[in-house]
């Protein structure tokens, strides 16, 4: 008994010291910048673990493929048909928006005498998701060696936004914060599809990209903790309706040009205006499902 008491006391002291040490590490990590020592250590470790992650991803690929096949088999044909129709709608919407953007760019270039274009990094493969219960991030197999830097937009195809790179970019890997992560935010504009009528009854000009006047409002794209993608801070009189396209506006709060304008995010799934609320409640159906990501591209310049 006598020898157990000092052991218990030293155990308690060790527990307190280690808890304080952990909290000190947490505080340093939160307060230090992205180039701080703890962040740098994590970056180095991420680079070291890259082959292991790649191997594990390869090893689990048959399981994920099999689970997809099983899902396909057990799925009811009605649901499958519904999903296929939805996928087709998304593709059509994305194609339409891409055409609108290109037309918009062409008109802008006529006005400003310069042709805006995106400079892409090489095609990148998603290595694996990043751990953490409350985050939605993935690691891709391109890094600073490929011209990729922090805080650059990540897209599927030419212009379907899926996220942005974080500060964790190593020579061969980059971490991507997906649009479904609760800490992701982007300034977006809601634009009507070509040929639709606005509130005043005027039809948007065919072939003409959406101008500022034709916009159905601007806001901040965010994913709620309930899991849906939405646009916050859209004025009640903005006129957003179901089926409108959601594209980046080139602004995110006070931070300008994190994303170039015109990147397609999705379509408005529902838009509710209630007088009791200060802003519209807008839910967005994303163009690309973040869970199905295989290959992406980073826009390294625009």
């Amino acid at each position, binding site marked *: 008994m006598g020898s157990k008491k000092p*052991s*218990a006391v*030293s*155990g308690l002291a*060790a*527990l307190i010291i*280690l*808890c304080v*040490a*952990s*909290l*000190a*590490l*947490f*505080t*340093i*990590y*939160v307060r230090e910048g992205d180039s701080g020592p*703890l962040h740098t*250590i*994590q970056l180095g*470790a*991420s680079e070291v*673990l890259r082959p*292991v*992650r790649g191997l*594990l*991803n390869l090893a*689990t690929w048959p399981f994920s493929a099999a689970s997809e096949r099983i899902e396909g088999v057990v799925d009811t044909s009605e649901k499958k048909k519904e999903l296929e129709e939805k996928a087709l709608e998304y593709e059509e919407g994305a194609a339409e928006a891409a055409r609108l953007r290109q037309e918009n760019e062409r008109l802008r270039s006529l006005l400003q005498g310069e042709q805006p274009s995106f400079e892409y990094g090489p095609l990148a493969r998603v290595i*694996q*998701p*990043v*751990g*953490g*219960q*409350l*985050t939605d*991030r993935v690691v891709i197999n391109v890094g600073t060696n490929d011209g990729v830097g922090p805080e650059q937009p990540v897209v599927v195809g030419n212009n379907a936004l899926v996220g942005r790179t974080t500060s*964790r970019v190593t020579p061969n890997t980059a*971490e991507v914060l997906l649009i479904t992560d*609760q*800490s992701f935010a982007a300034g977006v504009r809601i634009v009507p599809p070509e040929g639709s009528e606005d509130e005043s009854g005027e039809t948007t000009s065919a072939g003409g990209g959406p101008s500022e006047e034709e916009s159905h409002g601007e806001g901040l794209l965010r994913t709620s*903790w*309930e899991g849906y993608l939405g646009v916050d801070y859209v004025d009640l009189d903005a006129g957003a309706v179901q089926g409108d396209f959601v594209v980046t506006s080139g602004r995110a709060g006070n931070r300008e040009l994190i994303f170039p304008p015109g990147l397609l995010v999705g379509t408005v799934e529902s838009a509710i205006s209630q007088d009791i609320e200060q802003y519209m409640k807008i839910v967005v159906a994303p163009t690309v499902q973040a869970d199905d990501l295989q290959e992406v591209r980073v826009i390294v310049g625009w």
Partner: protein
Amino acid sequence: MVVGNNVLSGGSHIVRAALLVALAALLETTLSPLLTFGWVGPRILVIGVVAAVMGLRDLQALLLGFFGGVLTDTLGGGQFGIAALGGVLAAAISIRIGTTRRKGETGVFLARAVAVAIVAYDLLSLIAPVLAGQEGPPVVNYLLSGVVPDVLLNAVLAYFVGGRLLRLIATKEERWI
């Protein structure tokens, strides 16, 4: 090492326990993300620490929990210090619940200890973003659809896998006791 209430000491056992914790940290950062759905997934580090520190002296156990947590923080991309604190708490919980363990109840003990440790770990994950000045998930929602299924999943995992982990780190002599 402690089996029942007996304290044994073995350098070999500590080395094996440290290796188990290191492996758990590696799997936590590489394999767990692939198996996580929403807020629920296997917490391999917690299971590894709870199993590995079973039978170690208090100080050894706490240091091992801290080591595993720091390793997870380093290899993973999360906020540094959270896994370290989680590892220390998991070790402390394992020690505390281990004092009430009866012979032959390894699976039940591990499931209980892991369940309590997961609650602590999940609550830490809930508080961490708030402490870092970020927005956290709705508490009730997180408790019901995150913590509860997480605890159940990991307790079941610990019940079935924990015994095997213990056999991995126990030396031949210790298995006879």
